[in-house]
């Protein structure tokens, strides 16, 4: 049993990591792009907000019939999870970028920095704590939501939970739930510590 739990935990972590890499790869550039386009921002953030309100089990159901990303298995699971993880990443990155002091941005421009230099040397470093906050929230919530992925063959710790529900066996449920909770707590603590360090740097402490 314990070997099985370890294997499922590993699979779970894998699912979460792949999801986050994809969500960050889409969400971070999207936020950078949106930060300079107020008109688009409203629509895109609105869409991602709505996507977030769809119950996760229903989301897996919606994605099943779609070509390429649909079907039973990990691919559908990752697609749905990434869609959920996008919101905190996009929103927090936007908060970070838009929160850069207007005087700082103006003087960067007036000193002759190019837009690319301003982005990489000023805006992104100053937004980093907020970006890490987004990644932390996305990680923790993905660890939880990923348990539902087992319903469509995504694997991971959710397998125990669904099996336990089917068997009316609380120990089997706990075998999935406890490691998932532990993973979430550890991820939260670790990323929280990184975030705190980053804030110190950003404030010049």
């Amino acid at each position, binding site marked *: 049993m314990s070997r099985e739990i370890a294997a499922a935990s590993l699979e779970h972590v894998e699912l979460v990591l792949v999801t986050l890499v994809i969500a960050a790869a889409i969400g971070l550039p999207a936020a950078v792009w949106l930060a300079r386009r107020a008109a688009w921002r409203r629509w895109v953030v609105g869409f991602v907000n709505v996507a977030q309100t769809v119950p996760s089990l229903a989301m897996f159901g919606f994605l099943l019939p779609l070509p390429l990303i649909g079907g039973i298995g990990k691919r559908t699971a990752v697609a749905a999870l990434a869609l959920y993880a996008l919101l905190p990443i996009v929103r927090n990155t936007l908060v970070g970028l838009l929160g850069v002091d207007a005087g*700082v941005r103006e003087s960067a421009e007036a000193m002759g920095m190019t837009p690319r230099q301003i982005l990489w040397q000023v805006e992104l470093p100053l937004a980093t704590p907020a970006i890490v906050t987004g990644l932390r929230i996305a990680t923790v919530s993905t660890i939880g939501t990923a348990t539902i992925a087992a319903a469509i063959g995504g694997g991971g710790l959710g397998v125990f939970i669904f099996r336990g529900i089917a068997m009316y066996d609380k120990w089997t449920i706990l075998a999935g739930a406890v490691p998932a909770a532990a993973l979430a707590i550890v991820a939260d603590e670790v990323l929280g510590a990184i975030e705190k360090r980053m804030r110190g740097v950003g404030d010049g402490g």
Partner: protein
Amino acid sequence: MTILQIRGLNCRIGGREVLRHVDLTVEEGETVVLLGRSGSGKTTLLKCVNGIVADWAGEIRFQGKSVAEWDRFAMRRKMGYVIQDGGLFPHWTVAANVGLVPRLEGRPDGEIAARVEALLRNVGLDPAEFGGRYPRQLSGGQKQRVGIARALAADPPLLLLDEPFAALDPITRFDLQQQFVEMRRSWHKSALFVTHDVREALLVGSRIVLLRDGKIEVEAPAAEFRATKNAEAREFLRALSDEL
């Protein structure tokens, strides 16, 4: 030599005419003060010069060349810029902030370090004590000193200053004004200095340009400004004579 030449400058922002047919020249070594109430267009004029405000009509020539012909980024690096709260990068040390423009220009590290040290001394800050600090560890006056050092770092022929001392307490403000005047005497830089404070204008300016509703009302050498009969200028000067 004429550093800056502005002819027939008009600027509209959001349908409002912010600048109306402004003609202005800044000669080498001269500090021209743009004086005016809030909303008179003085800050916009400054931002038209370095292209932060890009939507204007007319002609602006910098070092004899139309600003349209300049590479925008190269030109800005030749115009030191100081704003009210310094605009220092909070995630960079004082030394890194001051060394910004030389670094953008790709100067060697050793040269930048030496330059930063000299500049900090110049504005009255001990490089050993302040070089490693972050902006939030500085007082308002120290931040402005660093801001001025940063603006001077690449030895630009023109300085643009937007109410650089307005947010400081009166004593610190006076100190910095005095120091600015002293530095001005020893360098041969031109400056365009925006302020709403007539006392400051008289203190730091070699020439005063009074703006009202986007138009130049008065243009006079600082020494003659007090004698002007213009009504708007009298309003500003009245504030002086009302003081104790």
